[in-house]
């Protein structure tokens, strides 16, 4: 057996060597000796190349057939467009007359603390006269955006007037106060920039921050220590900090708590860490400062230190719309890139003319400011004595903000209690105050509370009435609750 295998092997070997040693195998090409083994090598090379060129095995792609897509589409069930509401939404009281310091609700006259009518200009004769003449001349609407014949001379007059009043080179007028901040922020801050904002800013600013796609860092509400730490953190951690634009966004008087921002400290921090400041003066314009020029006058900071100042005209100026003021370059940039300005119809001319008249009245009657300051301090003193409610707003803020001393733990229940208080105050004592309602989209986590907007048009007796009523009602509601 072994012999047969050996014989077989020998003959195969002899055959192979014979084939390799064949005369044709010993050719000479280009001076190289080609042995027969070269054919084997070439053959192996060809086999290797063939295997490499084969595609690796991939499972075949099977796109969904039309029938399968149809089935998926039939199976898919969308959620309802809106989630079902478990409770009835809050129905606000309906005013039957102008929203002045006194107004009529359900046929009864009430003292109105729910309108941000700080200078008491609602119903002022001069304002109404200038509006009537503007309505006769221009009609109601402006029928076009600012770029396309919607710029009416009263708009330009107002912009010049407000710039002169505040001492800035230029200003720009927006058709709606709400849209001012959420158009101004994305016009300047883009993806990759850094914004440090107070956690208590209102929704329009939050939306502007979101739309700008910048990195937003919030600091503790009105806490300068937290702001300093945040700025320190950002500047030390970020190596590319010098190449990025950096902003601090604060409000002068916070809508959500009534606190006043310490502008001089913010300016010091801004200079140290080289940030730019955007200030929203909706509730401080026409209120703070010796002549009503806002937080800059009140804190003694020159307005040139601030880069962008915005304000809503629906508060002290008793008109509608908003404006933004700053250096010429800042304003010119917004005229081309601010979406709420370029893509929207402009402010109705009668409102611009009302605002100009309001500024005139403010300049001619500085006693309105002192009356307002007096009213605020009287009310603040009285309301700080209410058991169960605590004032969180600053002493000079025109928004007096009361929150529950002992929270129930859930915002919804707090809101319920506060609404009861406000409702009873309205029904029993004809004092109209409001509770801060929050949207589900609002990120602000500050406690809810009762807000009173103080006006220069309120008399001392109105203030007494309000404080007595709140004392009585809160004792009843909170005492019963406890």
């Amino acid at each position, binding site marked *: 057996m072994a012999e047969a295998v050996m014989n077989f092997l020998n003959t195969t070997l002899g055959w192979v060597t014979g084939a390799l040693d064949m005369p044709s195998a010993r050719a000479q090409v280009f001076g190289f000796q080609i042995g027969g083994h070269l054919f084997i090598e070439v053959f192996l090379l060809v086999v290797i190349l063939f295997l490499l060129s084969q595609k690796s095995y991939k499972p075949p792609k099977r796109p969904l057939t039309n029938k399968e*897509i149809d089935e*998926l589409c039939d199976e*898919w*069930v*969308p959620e309802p*467009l*809106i*989630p079902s*509401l478990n409770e009835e*939404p809050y129905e606000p009281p*309906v*005013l039957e007359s*102008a*929203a002045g310091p006194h107004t009529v609700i359900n046929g009864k006259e009430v003292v*109105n603390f*729910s*309108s*941000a*009518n700080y200078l008491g200009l*609602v119903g002022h004769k001069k*304002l*109404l006269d200038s*509006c*009537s003449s503007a*309505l006769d*001349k*221009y*009609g109601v*609407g402006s*029928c*076009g955006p600012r770029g*396309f*014949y*919607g*710029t*009416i*001379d009263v708009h*330009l007059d107002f912009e010049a007037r407000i710039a002169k009043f505040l001492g800035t080179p230029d200003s720009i007028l927006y*058709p*709606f106060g*709400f*849209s001012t901040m959420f158009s101004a922020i994305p016009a300047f801050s883009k993806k990759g920039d850094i914004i440090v904002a107070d956690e208590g800013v209102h*929704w329009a600013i939050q939306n502007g921050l979101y*739309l700008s796609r910048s990195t937003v860092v919030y600091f503790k509400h009105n806490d300068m220590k937290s702001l300093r730490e945040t700025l320190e953190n950002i500047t030390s951690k970020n190596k590319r900090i010098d190449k990025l634009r950096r902003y601090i966004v604060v409000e002068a008087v916070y*809508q959500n708590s009534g606190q006043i921002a310490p502008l001089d400290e913010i300016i010091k921090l801004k200079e140290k860490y080289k940030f730019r400041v955007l200030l929203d003066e909706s509730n401080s314009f026409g209120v703070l400062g010796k002549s009503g020029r806002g937080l800059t006058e009140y804190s003694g900071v020159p307005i040139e230190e601030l880069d962008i100042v915005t304000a809503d005209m*629906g508060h002290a100026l008793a008109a*509608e719309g908003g404006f933004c003021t700053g250096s010429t370059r800042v304003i010119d940039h917004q005229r*081309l890139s601010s*979406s709420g300005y*370029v*893509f*929207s*119809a402009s402010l*109705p001319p009668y*409102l611009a003319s009302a605002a100009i008249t309001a500024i005139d009245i403010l300049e001619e009657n500085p006693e309105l400011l002192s009356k307002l300051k007096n009213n605020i301090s009287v009310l603040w003193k009285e309301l700080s004595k209410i058991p169960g409610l605590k004032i969180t707003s600053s002493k000079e803020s025109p928004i007096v903000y009361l929150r529950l001393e002992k929270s129930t733990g859930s915002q919804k229940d707090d809101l319920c209690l506060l609404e009861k208080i406000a409702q009873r105050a309205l029904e029993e004592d004809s004092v109209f105050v*409001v509770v801060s309602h*929050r*949207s*589900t989209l*609002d990120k602000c986590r500050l406690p809810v509370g009762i807000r009173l907007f103080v006006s220069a048009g309120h008399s001392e007796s109105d203030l007494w009435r309000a404080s007595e009523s709140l004392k009585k009602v809160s004792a009843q509601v909170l005492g019963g609750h406890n």
Partner: protein
Amino acid sequence: MCPYTFKDCFGRPISSAPDAWFDVVERYSNDNNKTLKRSTKVSRCLNLGSYNYLGFAAADEYCTPRVIETLKKYSPSTCSTRVDGGTTALHNELEKFVASFVRKPAAIVFGMGYVTNSAILPVLMGKGCLIISDSLNHNSIVNGARGSGAVIRVFQHNIPSHLEEVLREQIADGQPRTHRPWKKIIVIVEGIYSMEGELCKLPEIIAVCKKYKAYTYLDEAHSIGAVGKTGRGVCELLGVDTADVDIMMGTFTKSFGSCGGYIAGSEEVIKYLKYTCPAHLYGTSISPPAAQQIISSIRVILGEDGSNRGAQKLAKIRENSNFFRSELQKMGFEVLGDNDSPVMPIMLYNPAKIPAFSRECLKHNVAVVTVAFPATPLLLARARICISASHSREDLMKALQVISKVGDLVGIKYFPAEPLKQYQDGKAVKYD
């Protein structure tokens, strides 16, 4: 939007009401258009640029006295949000009126049209939802969609078959990366597209959306009040039942001569919006005189003021638009837009022709609006004409004359003009 060289073509101030004829303030510049200063000179021009479709822009005999009365009663502003102390009896009346005009169960009104879109979409849509919007939608819709955090997909302008394709693909694929099914899908279209003048193909789009269970959102900023037999917008014009459109949005700036925007929908939707929409909770309520202007102008349109001025206005705007468009086309201009649409863009194509067209027309006392990048693609610049019911036939003839002359000068008659009209005695008269 524009370099300094033709800055004077945009933002021209006016010093009168934006009616059919208005006063354009002349501006001069000492530094090559870097800054433009107002002069005291004005020129009386024909207004082809303002959105004044039904002619309510200036003082109106029915509306203005009522507006002034409301001004005296309620003052120009309530200084308060709707949910605080800004809801007056007038606001509630306005909402009921708008709902009945638009033929929906309920409506909610805001102080500004732009904010209406930007603040509603984040409330309705959130993470895990899909927004499919037309490629030429307005900036406010784009902003609102971005602010909502939902995924945005775009379908080719006004092509329902592409919308169907996108819907099928998206429902089958699900959310990106996780492939979970979408929570909800909403399709956003406009009634009349402001840069094209086209009507949206609403019946086909609604049919597609119903088939795939997507919600629909119709933005009627330019079409409400301007089209339709009784001015109720594209739904009336195209015969679509308003119950098929989930949310209808519109603005009052164009046809009603006022300001503000509205959303109309079912009672539940409006209740939910009143509960949580930020524009309702935090934005100042609409100015009472503006609200009264809307109510009065709707009354005029419906004929409830005792006259037939409303019907006359609606017929006039339709007649004017169709006449103007056909005449321009006969002259050889390339005019976009559908019949009955009061918006007609005249193509210029070359951006260098924009200042030429605009300035020459102004020299002849016709004020036109020219649109450049980025509102339109760079090489598709156009001049956009907005016809109004307050334009008389003579006004239109003058406009046609001037536009034809300037068109020849600038060279924008891209199509051959219609053959010259022949008179009986064989003499050809230039049809100008």
